[in-house]
């Protein structure tokens, strides 16, 4: 596993290309914005999105647990996409997965989608909270500063544009550490992305296929990016 190992506030942190953040001292794996049931939500509204995304996401989550040896999983919000996506196929797949990971403790931080979609069924024995303080960190969904610690958040689906001197650049999902909080990339395979507006001092780690790479700030890119566009 090509984890990028770094440190923040004295705590070791692993950033994994499967879009998870691991805190080895707490044996805790964090992921954000799984959006389970999103494809099903589309299908039940008459938009044909193929099935298979949930299974792939769950197996990637298993890989992460296996690679890190985590005993606790924290989902930083938007666990479910919408109430309409809680169809039998999706629910069964997740229930089976939970069954297979009986020893894992699962904590779900509620996000804006969860408000409408609802908490998982009680049988799954997930702990559902609005936020959770575990110094020096706070686990929450919305990226905003918190007085009790440094928040690790989701919600934004951050991505970063990486330029290439010899051709068009590319956009990759990223971990984004700002002075106020850190934002994790969206975990779900069927989720969109939003470009970040980088500030001086921010650290950005792009998820590229099977590695996580730190992206240094590029000169003159913080402002005046508009001049770049050609089409």
């Amino acid at each position, binding site marked *: 596993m090509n984890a990028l190992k770094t440190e923040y506030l004295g705590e070791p942190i692993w950033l994994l290309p499967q879009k998870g953040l691991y805190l080895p001292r707490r044996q805790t794996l964090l992921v954000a914005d799984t959006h389970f049931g999103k494809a099903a939500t589309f299908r039940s509204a008459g938009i044909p*999105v193929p099935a298979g995304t949930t299974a792939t996401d769950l197996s990637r989550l298993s890989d992460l647990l296996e690679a890190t040896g985590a005993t606790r999983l924290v989902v930083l919000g938007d666990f479910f996409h919408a109430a309409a996506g809680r169809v039998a196929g999706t629910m069964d797949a997740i229930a089976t997965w939970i069954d297979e990971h009986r020893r894992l403790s699962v904590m779900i931080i509620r996000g804006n989608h969860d408000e409408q979609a609802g908490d998982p069924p009680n049988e799954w024995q997930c702990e559902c909270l609005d936020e959770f303080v575990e110094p020096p960190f706070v686990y929450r969904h919305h990226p905003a500063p918190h007085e009790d610690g440094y928040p690790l958040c989701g919600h934004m689906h951050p991505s970063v544009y990486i330029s290439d001197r010899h051709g068009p650049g590319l956009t990759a999902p990223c971990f984004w550490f700002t002075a106020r909080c850190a934002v994790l990339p969206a975990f779900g395979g069927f989720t969109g992305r939003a470009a970040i507006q980088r500030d001086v001092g921010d650290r950005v780690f792009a998820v590229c296929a099977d590695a996580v790479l730190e992206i240094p700030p590029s000169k003159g890119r913080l402002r005046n990016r508009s001049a770049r566009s050609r089409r």
Partner: protein
Amino acid sequence: MIESRPLISIDHWLAERSWRPFDYQRRAWQAYRDGESGLVHAPTGTGKSYSIWLGVLDNWLATHSQRDCWPTKPEPIQLLWITPMRALANDLVGSLRAPVADLAMPWTVGIRTGDTSAAERKKQKARLPTALVTTPESMSLMLSYPDARERLGELQCVVVDEWHELLGTKRGVQTELGLARLRNWNPRLQTWGLSATLGNLEEAAQVLMGHRPGADRPCIVSGETPKEIQIRTILPVDIERFPWAGHLGVRLLDQVIAVIEQAKSTLLFTNTRSQTEIWFRALLAARPAWAAEIALHHGSLDRDVRSYVEGRLRDGTMRCVVCTSSLDLGVDFTPVDQVIQIGSPKGIARLLQRAGRSGHQPGAVSRVVCVPTHAFELVEYAAARSAAMRRQIEGRQPIELAMDVLAQQLVTIGIAGGFIADELLAEVRTTHAFRRLTDTQWQWVLDFVVRGGQSLRAYPEYSRLMPVDGRYVPVSQRVVRMHRMSIGTISSDASVQVKYLKGGRLGTVEESFLARLRPGDCFVFAGKTLELALVRDLTAYVRKSKKTSGTVPRWDGGRFPLSSQLAAAVREKFADARDGLFDDPEMKTVRPVLQLQNDWSQLPGPNDLLIENSKAREGHQVFVYPFEGRSVNEGLAMLLAYRIARNDPASITVTPNDYGFELLSSSSLEFDEPRWRKLLSTEDLLEDLLDCLNASELARRQFRDIARVAGLVFSGYPGAPKSTRQLQASSGLLYDVFCEYDAHNLLLDQARREVLTQQLESGRMFAALERISSMRLLLRFTPRLTPLSFPLWAARIQTSHLTTEKASTRIERMVKQLEKAAGDK
């Protein structure tokens, strides 16, 4: 007094206004009276609309000769008039109403577009007007109601206005499908298309008529008048040796102003919306006194702004309007006496049509003054004039097998009371677009709307239509509502409204442009420098800025490639130049540049393919010049890059323009002739193209339109409830999901096919490679950039560097170096 006359006819109406109809108009009336269908083609502004409309009225008058017997109530709907632009509909209704009102006929003329008010819609629900002006989208929407047959089954005639604009687009396919339905209800329905001049008129007419067994051949009425068109060029006094896009243009400002001053009213056409903003500002800066007499007009400006400008053009109170193709179409601005074209004409028909916007008074000459933005455009003008004199005009290729549009039509008919599969298949196959639809493809579309795709397992929970006793009907009212909301085939990018903080709309910019700005940044829009205050709910609030500069937005689209006819004409001009023939003033002016090309490398003749190799700081570069227009050149470049990298892994950057393309690679691109021949062969062309599509972003980009039309991307509507937000996904994301989980989806196939046939124009590519196979290869090693390669190099610098300031500084420096080298020679 009209009442005193026993007989009323259109001739009387015309005589009263002392109008003499053109011969072709009389021929069109006769053809209409004979029950025929067909196509009328004539230059803009010669009364195409009246050629059919007066025929329709005349026909009615002939069968209702006794005025006393006229019904007191207006006649029921007889005619549908389809126009591609909502903006044109109001003007059109005005001119259609004039003769009806003058003759006090019991006819009404109404309008039904996306802009029609709820009150008007309600009135129409009770009773449709005798003639209804509408758009392809609104026609589809009407067909989606269960009472459509009852209401439209008795139509006598459908007129499709500006058919040349719809042909070759998916809206054209949508129109074909709608017409097939109407003809199915009334086999004697007459269809008439109105079109500007096209190279493939017969085909255009056939597409409109469809392929009903036993139908008559379409009747083609030509209104071509030998109108004099003058194409003149502003010649730069000091021809720069190294042209690059956008450089010469503003230098010619003084001459352009002089030309504007000579005329009463000028339309100044540019090729992009960004260019209109730049030119408008340049004119205003040079002539502040013109502030009240010049204006901007492009598709992203607010409707009210555009209407105001159009009104003043008609009144003749505008000195100059800077515009894009937004003024290519429709209503006539008789007072316009001159047209200026900035930059490449891109096509012969296009240049002629723009020229035709001036000189509408009888006997007047249409004048277009061309303004080059780089030196080779001088060659293009000379080539366009020669081709126009020989009447070599481009055609428009109709689209075939657009599965996304077909899927949409199936749901449209499904929610209008359902359909029986075999019956609808027969109907669909009468259209030109789907005449070759196979049973397998048909089954796939049915499966797509019923269960999402071929495999039963892939799409649980999904359905839009379901079969009930052999009829396909919608599964729920929600499906019906959502489909009606998203009917339409024009894909529009996510656009953001631009409004003043104090109120007042200015227009729209693309979301991607705005995403790069922060509050406080300035940009140029609608001829003003604006400061971004805040962005909220897809609206950008701005205030006027005192600064004089700002970023000019770039809008997607509008990057037309050079047409193949014009590209061929340009090749001929090069051949002439090589033989020492410099007849046109443009060619005389550009001569030193061509001379330099010949000295440093070679000027390719019609039977030569020039390939220039040189070494750049960034790596190895090669320039190839097939002169095939941008899209074909891009396709050839991709193909070559793929074939080179397949044997020998490398990453290659491709930059095409209308003349040729550059390949840039970290490894050597110096090949001998046999290797080039192999790279340029037609063998395995399609397989290789498909492979390189998968290795590139092209198909993914094309999927955007398809996803929208097929109902995968639900764009909602203004004020849509929040619940629809959960259904928003970008087409790129959907593309990835489809590739991973349903790779054989026909919509993916379609995306690839559209890239091949429309974007890269694989047919033209094949023809180009065939042509190249019999050509002489001129392999040249050039120590410095040549006049032909410089624009390609400059375009690459513009893309790969992050700011244009840097790029332009660098380019200026390079220009100086190169000019020095030329002087030292």
